[in-house]
């Protein structure tokens, strides 16, 4: 194909092509970075917590009645509350815990253990025995908590913990974690690992989303309690509506906060949803707009060159030659734009990464974007190029 003459001819319409090249370049830069951001948000969203997120509800209470100052009263009340919760149809399991999936934080500590150099950080939650049935994960190695694990006296030294597989791997590789001892940062308060849960993820400010220690204990005191409740599939709504009235009937001297974990998760990902929605819309509109722009420029190119097309036809160009000519010209413009766009894509990525988030551009995305815009460019030229093939050769003999 005649690249040389086409390129040389295009040099005389430099400015016009420059604009469309710039447009394509920016489009590639935006599309690739937008897709990159979408993928990043999606990866975060698809991260499995390991929990039965859709069927979890929590109810927290804060007391204002004076009787809550009495610890034995609270102890008895929580038992009553538990019975009330379990009496609601559709409740599968319930536990007291300060841990709520997808709240985007929680509590953590710094720990030490033999076999791991230095200290490590992990999330840490106390929970009652039924916690794993409640969040919907299995203790896959060792055993779950039993009632006697919860020390009646807080100073009791026979303390145990159940940790996540990811943490065990980090600490001891593939060695058996059961029976290992973890102490606090100062080497005191030892806890023996009695069980491992495979799945755990809860986003945290530090990069410790997969690292957790559960310790048996009361997740309530005179200032209130949090219940986490797992329902039968689909029973979330009915359970949710009954929780507050039932517990209010047990003791009205407190206020409640009820929320589903699905809502928490939604709230946690609201920014991501905005990004995905906005970026998807921008990509679609942008590709559409660029297509319109290429259609406009190529129709203009054809309209302006009717006489030239007729001459070429007179000199022996077939319709296919004319079609090829315009497609090739567009392909060159698109390619020039895409080459510039690759620089733009990485440039914009550097700008976004340095100032903002930390998602590096992947070359597959750039390649994919180029293919998309190549196809987009060619497809948008076809209408004008087809029109060009219909120019009759006899135009050549028409004066002016």
């Amino acid at each position, binding site marked *: 194909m005649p690249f040389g003459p086409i390129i040389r001819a295009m040099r005389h319409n430099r400015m016009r092509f420059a604009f469309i090249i710039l447009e394509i370049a920016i489009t590639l830069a935006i599309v690739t970075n937008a897709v990159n951001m979408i993928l990043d948000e999606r990866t975060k969203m698809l991260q499995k917590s390991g929990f039965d997120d859709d069927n979890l509800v929590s109810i927290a209470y804060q007391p204002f009645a004076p009787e809550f100052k009495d610890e034995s009263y609270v102890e008895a009340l929580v038992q009553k509350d538990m019975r009330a919760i379990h009496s609601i149809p559709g409740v599968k399991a319930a536990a007291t815990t300060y841990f709520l999936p997808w709240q985007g934080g929680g509590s953590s500590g710094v720990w030490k253990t033999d076999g791991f150099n230095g200290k490590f*950080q992990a999330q840490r939650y106390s929970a009652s025995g039924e916690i794993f049935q409640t969040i919907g994960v299995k203790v896959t190695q060792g055993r779950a908590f039993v009632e006697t694990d919860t020390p009646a006296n807080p100073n009791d030294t026979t303390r145990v913990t159940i940790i996540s597989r990811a943490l065990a791997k980090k600490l001891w590789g593939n060695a058996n974690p059961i029976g290992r001892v973890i102490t606090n940062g100062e080497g005191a308060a030892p806890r023996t690992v009695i069980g491992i849960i495979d799945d755990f993820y809860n986003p945290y400010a*530090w990069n410790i989303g997969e690292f957790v220690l559960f310790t048996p204990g009361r997740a309530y005191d005179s200032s209130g309690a949090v219940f986490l409740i797992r329902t039968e599939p689909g029973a979330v709504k009915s359970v949710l509506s009954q929780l507050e009235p039932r517990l209010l009937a047990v003791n009205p001297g407190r206020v409640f906060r009820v929320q589903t974990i699905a809502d928490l998760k939604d709230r946690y990902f609201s920014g991501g949803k905005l990004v995905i929605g*906005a970026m998807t819309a921008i990509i679609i509109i942008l590709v559409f707009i660029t297509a319109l722009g290429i259609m406009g420029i190529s129709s203009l190119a054809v309209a302006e060159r009717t006489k030239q097309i007729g001459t070429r036809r007179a000199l022996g160009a077939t319709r296919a030659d004319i079609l090829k000519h315009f497609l090739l010209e567009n392909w060159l413009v698109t390619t020039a734009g895409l080459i510039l766009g690759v620089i733009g894509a990485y440039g914009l990525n550097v700008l976004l990464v340095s100032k903002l988030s930390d998602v590096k551009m992947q070359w597959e995305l750039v390649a994919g974007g180029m293919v998309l815009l190549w196809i987009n460019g060619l497809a948008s030229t076809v209408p004008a190029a087809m029109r060009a093939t219909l120019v009759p050769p006899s135009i050549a003999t028409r004066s002016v």
Partner: protein
Amino acid sequence: MLFYQLKIAFTSLRRNPVITSLLIGGIALGICVSTTFIALRHVFEKDPLPGKSNTLFYVRLDNWDPQRAYVAEDPKSLPTMVTYRDMRELMKSNIPTRQTATFRTRYFVHPDPKIGRPYAEDVRVVFADFFAMFNVPFQYGGGWDKTADAKPEQVIVIDQNTNQKLFGGANSVGRTVRLEDRNYKVVGVLAPWNPPLRFYDPTQGLGPKVEPIYMPFNFTPILEIQTFGNSDGWKGNDGNGYQAFLNSDTCWLEYWVELPTAEKQQAFRQYVNNYVIDQKRHGRFGRPLHTEVTSMPDVTKEFGIVPPQIRSLAIVSVLFLIVCSLNLIGLLLGKFIARIPEISVRRALGASRLQVFWQHIVECEVVGIAGGLIGLSISVGLLKIVAKVIPNGDVVHLDAEMIAVSIFLSLVAGLLAGIYPAWRVCSIPPAMQLKVQ
């Protein structure tokens, strides 16, 4: 002349309604997307205290574990808040013109039983200077004074909603509010105050709103107030009880100072360093000397309160507008070139090259403004959708500044799209066209 050019512009735009609506639609699309996301960014990133934020400084000290940085992977990191004991010592300085330590807690408000059940409410615990430092607006009364701080007196500041709920919106200064088991005298009622960020609390990120109730800090040791904000510790307390917590190395307070001059900033930094060096002699602060006295704009940036995605969206949306604008060049070229005969007549009749150029620029700007206004009104709707999606979204709106920016952008977009086609048209000599036609 401008009036005549506007007239020609309107005539010309009316002549080809399809092209004209494509042009206006293109600009409108670019403006509505860019305005929406620039406005979103603007809401969260605009200076909450213009002219003042550069004099407010957030104080941090690295009192973390000698063996391990605050963020283990980043040896330069330091705790995001300060300890109670360090705050107490540092606040003895008279270098800052104002200063406050602050944290968030939750208390039960016990309204008159006739009004309603008790309810839990966020309470911010602050020193008297807080209100003046952060330009807190009052409808009735004001903050408390230093004597109320010192005692502390049982005084309280409530926001408008609380005032509405408890006192029906009347001037409640002098009346009392019961929190838990104590009565506090209302000294001030806030005017409506809804900053998009809780800018005095950088550790909480985007989302939580300013607290409805404010009480004196010095109740903290007396009432053993629990923080409902973050608290970061790296070693256990020496002993049990609240006093041990206060004496510990646990970081849980936000500490702000007002330092209006460079000299004071310099002096206060020195003072903080000297304090830490002195503490090192007493066996604390085992890590290398590292203190930060950071201005409010810098701390907002450093803590990334505004999600990076909001900025990314703003950047991308401006590029989007540029594409929309570039896209119109082709259309305009076609439109203007088709008008060459008319132009050459005008040129032959004595219109100067510059006049022809301006004629086309005026036409593009008419398109730009029309598209801009349409885009602007669409973005009002788009922002409403965005506000529903993000936390604390009800603060999202278009202010006068953003409307101005949006109109400016549409003018720039019109110019960007029109300048080359206009130049092309005006550079065509009149004679040639007349002869050929």
